């Protein structure tokens, strides 16, 4: 059972990291980037190639982050920059970007799942259950990045500018802040983040183009349940969903994990639409 919980925390960490990624562009550029999980997969694939080429681990992470940043910036310049206001435009274009990435990664790396093995995964015994080392790293990453970005938003000048921009774009412009750059930087940062965690995520999920959509959806659910815009909420939402999913699969039966997550999502929708911690609601388009 404890092993299941560890497994749940591992997948939950992945959901959290995706939710955190969503928050980066959401709070700064006001855009929820459905293709974020796809960029994570790109990072995973970069790791596959890197391992095949025999690159040192630290270099793989850097290259993945850079590639991720480039992809995300390209997405911003092509798909997001010109968005007309309202009516689901951003949803469609980011789904479109996601589809392009699925096709592109399948073309470049093939559509079969590929293992990412940066370092050996001998299970560790902890608190009465088994967990892969990568699971612990993912968990640590989720907590560290969640906390880090929360502090960034609240303590730094740039975090402040992001919060302001999300609240009132014009007023932010009038403070002398170049909001166009803000948007580009937010995307690049989210892309670099995606690339960076890509190899780690890939170690747990294998590198597959198609899994990105499932991750994107569950990441959104984690984001929503925790509270849109809140990094702390992302942590709680993601880990919570991961554990619930794992326990449901264990205790009720395989396939029930997804049902349980769905049920939780619906419950939050109906009972507490602003999320557990959040105060903002996603602008209803």
């Amino acid at each position, binding site marked *: 059972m404890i092993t299941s919980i560890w497994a749940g925390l591992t997948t939950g960490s992945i959901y959290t990291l995706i939710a955190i990624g969503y928050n980066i562009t959401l709070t700064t550029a006001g855009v929820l980037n459905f293709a974020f999980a796809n960029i994570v997969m790109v990072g995973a694939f970069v790791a596959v190639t890197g391992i095949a080429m025999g690159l040192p681990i630290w270099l793989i992470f850097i290259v993945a982050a850079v590639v991720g940043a480039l992809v995300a910036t390209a997405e911003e310049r092509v798909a997001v920059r010109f968005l007309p206001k309202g009516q689901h435009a951003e949803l469609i274009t980011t789904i479109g970007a996601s589809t392009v990435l699925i096709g592109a990664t399948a073309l470049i790396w093939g559509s079969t799942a590929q293992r990412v093995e940066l370092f050996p995964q001998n299970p560790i015994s902890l608190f009465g259950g088994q967990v892969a080392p990568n699971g612990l790293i993912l968990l640590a990453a989720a907590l560290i990045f969640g906390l880090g970005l929360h502090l960034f938003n609240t303590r730094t000048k740039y975090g402040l500018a992001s919060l302001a921009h999300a609240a009132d774009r*014009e*007023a932010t412009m009038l*403070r002398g802040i*170049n909001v166009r750059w803000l948007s580009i930087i937010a995307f690049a940062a989210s892309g670099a983040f995606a690339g960076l965690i890509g190899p780690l995520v890939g170690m747990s999920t294998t590198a597959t183009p198609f899994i990105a959509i499932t991750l994107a959806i569950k990441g959104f659910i984690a984001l929503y349940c925790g509270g849109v815009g809140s990094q702390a909420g992302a942590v709680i939402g993601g880990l919570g969903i991961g554990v619930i999913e794992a326990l449901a699969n264990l205790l009720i039966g395989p396939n029930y994990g997804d049902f349980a997550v769905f049920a939780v999502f619906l419950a939050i929708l109906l009972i507490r639409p602003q999320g557990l911690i959040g105060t903002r609601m996603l602008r209803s388009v």
Partner: protein
Amino acid sequence: MEPILEVTNLATGYGDLRAVWDVSFTLEAGSVFALLGRNGAGKTTTLRAISGLNPVQGGDVLLRGQSVKSLQPYERVRRGIGFVQEGKKIFPDLSVEKNLRLGLFTFRGSRSEVNERYEWAYETFPALATRKTRQAGLLSGGQQQMLAIAQALMPQPDVLLVDEPSAGLAPAIVGDVVDILRRLRDSGLGIVLVEQSVDFALAIAAKVTVLDMGRVTFAGATDTPGAPDAIRTAYMGEILELAEAERRGAALAE
């Protein structure tokens, strides 16, 4: 004296729509220029064009002799044009202190210069000093207006555009706002003031232009003896004409 801000034959609007035709004025440092008119006359649109939020569709805007009409809003702010938008625009979810900090985003100065700016802000607006960590959205209307003005002034602009600062404020608070603007004027700031209240404008402005439906119906100094009357006529002139037309129209419909 060299004007610090010159607006020449300005035409502006929203997208394809033209809202303002041919507005011209100059602003010297240490003086107040008032733009008056009814709702929808184009006063706010003019300010927005000066600050860069609306496109300049004709004419020019010169800051210290240099054209700024193709600069983005953030660039104009960095060059010294501050804008206090109508409606007490501050960031309600952030604290007073963070609001001021945002104002200083582009301020280039040493640690001590930065601290000086904060000190200046709290000295000039004592109501804010006692509420540094209060969430801005919880301040009273008058305090929010003070914060909006302070925020715009943090980077020490040379020109301040102020849009209807008296709107929705109790008369006593309005007096405070008039005082503050007067003091700022006296310390060398050039102020473009937009107001609906002729009162307010006449209290501190040296020059006035009245807009109606995007066009100038009066422009001149306020201290000449006939000025207040001329202003009032211009302000309401269209109104009086309309009343006549009404009566004629009513007679026809009978």
